[in-house]
């Protein structure tokens, strides 16, 4: 499964692309948890899934997810999750 994180990271880096291995039956929340763990290890700062979800827009294969769907939407092999801080301007 591919996850692209376009949020705010310490050190000014704003994009992380990651491929995650998750057990069958995993949800979007599980994917974000796995990503938060990886970011914490890499950057030496605490990232929590709930904080990321509170501030960012999460899309599964191009569709925005909100509320319960963040917790319940199941992910499949080859799915794309995009997480971004909704910055305005263009």
């Amino acid at each position: 499964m591919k996850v692209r994180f376009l949020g705010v990271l310490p050190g000014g880096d704003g994009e992380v692309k990651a491929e995650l291995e998750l057990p069958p039956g995993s949800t979007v929340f599980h994917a974000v948890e796995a990503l938060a763990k990886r970011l914490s290890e890499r950057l030496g700062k605490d990232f929590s899934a709930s904080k990321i979800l509170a501030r960012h827009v999460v899309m599964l294969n191009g569709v925005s997810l909100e509320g319960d769907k963040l917790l319940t939407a199941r992910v499949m092999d080859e799915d794309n999750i995009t997480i971004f801080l909704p910055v305005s301007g263009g």
Partner: protein
Amino acid sequence: MAEESYTFSLVRVDLARGVSRREEIDSGLLLKFLGGRGLGAKILFDEQIPGTEPFSPDNRLLFLTSPLIGSGAPWCVKYTVSTRSPLTGTILMSLAGGFFGAALRASGFDGLIIEGQAAEPCYLWLHDGQVEFREARHLWGLETQRVQEVILGETGDKRARVACIGPAGEKGVRFSCIVSGTRAAGRGGAGAVMGSKNLKAVAASGRARVPILDPQGFRRINEAIRTRARNAERLRLFGRYGTPKNLVIVNERGLFPTRNFREGVFEGIDKVNAMEQQRRVLRKVTCHACPVSCGNMTRAAEGPYRGIVTEGPEYETFWAFGAQCGNQDIDAIIAADRLCDELGLDTISTGNVIGFAMECAEKGLITSRDLEGLDLSFGNHSAMLEMVRRIARREGIGDFLAEGTLRAAQKIGKEALGLAMQVKGLELPAYDPRGAKAMGIEFATSPRGGCHERGLVSRETFGAPPPIDPLAVEGKGGAAKEVQDETAVLDSLGICVFPPHNDGMDMADAAALLSAVLGQQVSEEDLWLAGERVWNLERLFNLREGFRREHDTLPPRLLKEPMPAGPAAGNVVELNLLLADYYTVRGWDERGVPTLEKLAQLGLSEEGSRVLPCPR
């Protein structure tokens, strides 16, 4: 609050006679229209004879600031160029950041009304409350950076800032722009109006202090805004990357126009995005009084364009010379951006018209003979760059495309009209409203034609908090109106729209800043009303010039051809439903004409009486 009265003064310049005179703006008028865009609409509405041709000497060209520009308040930087557009025939308000607005105020003038046409090329040198007319034959034909260098040398004033046109403005390219530093008043062809007046540049400098009648109050709010901005997460991210941050996001949301709006997802996004740009960024670039610095000085890294340096490209330019032209070479986009800045071309319209020509060539509507052997296929970036040069110089088919997408399509024929991605003649920018329905309202109703900048609903387009469903129709009239009115306030005060849309400041901050500067209480409600007033006055100007309900439309592709793939697959724009809702929310009738009640509420009855009743 202070007892003194606030003065805001303009200089009226007659280029034909080589004379100028200072004029004071009544403070009541300033409170009603704020400055910049709003004041420009009022002056044009009052002074311009209906039907004045854009290239006529009688078409006024205004450079306007606001009471906040040059005050040191954060992001209060954008000067407005107002005129009647040669591209659309509508009212035109084109804004630019950088340093020119602050320099203009420092010169002792808050704005400039330019009338007539000079007999020979000239430039204006505004300094220390004086206006000098200087000859510019030696500058004619020069590109914009060179013009600025030469004029700075001639004035001997290192603090001077120059707003000028390039060869495209001289040649009357209908989407040529005005460049100062590396920032452009880009859209709608103000550069061509300037060229038609034989005016190559306006230079400004001085030591005049911007009046602030309640300095203590001003310092307090100024510091509060700056402190809050330092902790605004979204604003920090915006500053780090600038507008290109949204390339991936808009593409991900399926509304990134690709190959002349045939699709909404660009397969080359992994090669054309903010991170790829960051590998090429030399340094950050800022505007006057900006603690964010969203600009990027970028150098092309590879291939034939290696070493070319530009400020930008911004989101729109990455799109215009990227997805719109099917081009995945980021360094070619950097080269195109630099070329447009030097020649004085609006990058959005230039990329749009080239993408249009590429589709026409693909369909055989433009022949190889028309193109003089140029292979104008989607993705051919060397041909794309050559076309930029030909447009600016009006060479061959470039002369034809320099008229803009609508006029070019009208000459080619009916099938081409269906491919012209424009509204009222203004080429559309980098959002496909089939995937963001409020954007459809914005394109259809923006007073200068198909434009995103007068009312971009961030909650819809980017999912800014609280997000709204981009594909829904319900409620979009109100969402569009709210942002349009807000943007009219920000534009009129010269406030960059990016910080307010990223938690940097809000309408209460703007009201507090203006109150401190003017030395009298201005409320949030006053500002909202002023924004709505400006929007309606611009509508009256366009109604007087013959624009009607049928001009509030979109290209047939967006109305009839469902988006082929991506998150917005199957969608078209339900424009009639959207407009009916929007007109109702605006207090306009079913023809899109403001009602007498609405005009009375906004204090525009007298202006309305000069336009209404509107003939069908």
